[in-house]
């Protein structure tokens, strides 16, 4: 069962990710992106990480992407103002992307993915166990990421502030 779910979700997430890039209208891109996030949340659930799935939807699909939508709507971007990409670039990008894909597949083909299957524990992805890891083992990265957000915030304010 979960095997089929995995393949369906994977197909959907790859498809929607491609559409993000390919669709002409920015609004459509954002909508596809939101959809993509949902499918990834589905993967999280498959991986038994329910909390992460929920957070992912709330933060990315809920908050960030809605903000994106607003921005795009406010700036009134649409297909006409989009500069036309020459065909040669499209061709080159496709070729390069394809090459990267082939190369990656070639390297992974030989790779025996080391499957470490720990004992199944349905509580693993819950808030409690996550919190224990986060505030115990990964205490320092958690704190240091505060610095990252702080610098991003200061940067955003600085860029956004109107020059007087």
């Amino acid at each position, binding site marked *: 069962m979960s095997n089929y779910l995995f393949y369906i979700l994977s197909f959907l997430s790859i498809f929607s990710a491609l559409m993000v890039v390919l669709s002409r209208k920015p609004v459509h891109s954002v909508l596809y992106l939101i959809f993509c996030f949902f499918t990834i949340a589905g993967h999280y659930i498959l991986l038994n990480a329910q909390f992460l799935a929920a957070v992912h939807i709330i933060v990315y699909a809920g908050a960030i992407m809605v903000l994106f939508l607003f921005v795009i709507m406010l700036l009134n971007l649409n297909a006409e103002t989009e500069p036309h990409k020459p065909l040669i670039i499209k061709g080159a990008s496709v070729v390069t992307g394809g090459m990267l894909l082939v190369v*990656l597949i070639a390297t992974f083909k030989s790779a025996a993915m080391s499957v470490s299957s720990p004992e199944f524990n349905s509580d693993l992805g819950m808030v409690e166990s996550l919190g224990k890891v986060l505030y115990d083992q990964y205490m320092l990265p958690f704190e240091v990421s505060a*610095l990252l957000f702080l*610098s991003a915030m200061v*940067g955003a304010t600085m860029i956004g502030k109107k020059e007087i």
Partner: protein
Amino acid sequence: MNTLIAIAGIGIVAMIADILRIRKIIFPVAMAGLAIAAFTAVSDWNTNTRYFNDMMFFDNYAAAFSLLIVVIAIIWFVMAVPDLKTGNHYSDKSALVAFSLAGSVVMVSFSNLAMLFLGIEILSVSLYVLAASNKNNLLSNEAGFKYFIMGAFATGIFLFGVALIYGACGTFNLQEINAFVATNKSDLSGQMYTGVLLMIIGLSFKIAAAPFHFWAPDVYEGSPTTITAFMSTIVKVAAFGALYRLMAGCFSQINEWWTTVFIILSVVSMLVGNIMATRQSSFKRLLAFSSISHAGYMLLPLLTLSDLTGTSLLLYGAAYAFASIGIFSLVSVMSENDDESIDSLNGFAKSHPIKAILFSVLLLSLAGIPPLAGFMGKYYAFYAALKSGNTSIVLIAIISSLIGVYYYLQVIIAMYKPTGHTSASFRFTIYQNIVLWTCFLITLILGIFPQLIIGWL
């Protein structure tokens, strides 16, 4: 660890200084904070402490690199303070600088790949904004934007690598990865190797090694000069510290495998950087290309890991950074005239004879003329590479450093040429004078007593 706290403290004070209307204290606080950071880095010497479940490991290399970064930062701050003060964002910019310094300290003392990633991100995010901090200048905006796009791309590659390695070994911890690699040395999966390659590539973006250097000339040229100085010195030292730590800490067992990658990176960087630099008319762009070539030289000691690797990286980094900051103090003066072309230096020697000599010395140090620090750095780097038997690479390095002499000399000659039609006046503030003399003295002293750095490790 305490170094990190002290530096983060500066950032927080600087951040709120604007709100509390105490902007005047930023500079003193920054100086004091950096001094404390330097002191704590020294006091961490020989302690070899692992912090918070082995997230950070302050061994001697971490302490030495942190100290170097802090010292460069002090000099940089003195140089940059007049520039930071102009405009409305003194406190924002200072805070961002402090944060990115914190990021670089994390980068040289991590013991867990998650920490490395965070360090790189803290450093980069602040820098994206700083590169664009001259908001009225289109070029600066462009620089920030380009840096952001390409940096995000590089981060993606890097993160992919980290994920693959986690998938292969099931851990982020350097020691555990190292143990994993050591025990499974003969049958490591392709996944692991791909991960290593992607991480190297992600980091070579940060050190601006060719062929991942494309962002550097544009970003260096567009960013405000002081920020360019920051990028080409502190960021480079931190990224090399991280690269060394990563390769020595995790993957020393599979050294033969990744040596070829470094050889290609190094040779291409040296050639591209040096050859392209000869063609530049803008001093800043020239320095950008020269910094690419220096990345190539600094990769030489990494070809084979030995006792010499860290030491020679440190020495080279110091020699390069101090000479660069001194030279950037000249560029920042040129930027005030809105003319960064090499030709605008004509007549410089006439109006500032002593400064012309000092700058010539710094440039010659970058070119690697004994007995200056740059020569010692190159000597050690080449020596380390030679010891690992890469004679032909060293030959290429020496030849390309020969090309290097050519364009550094061009700048010196430009300074000694008589004034052309434009007679730019160069106004040095007291800050820049201090920086210039300090860098000059350090360059000289390190050239004569490189033991000061290498004697320790």
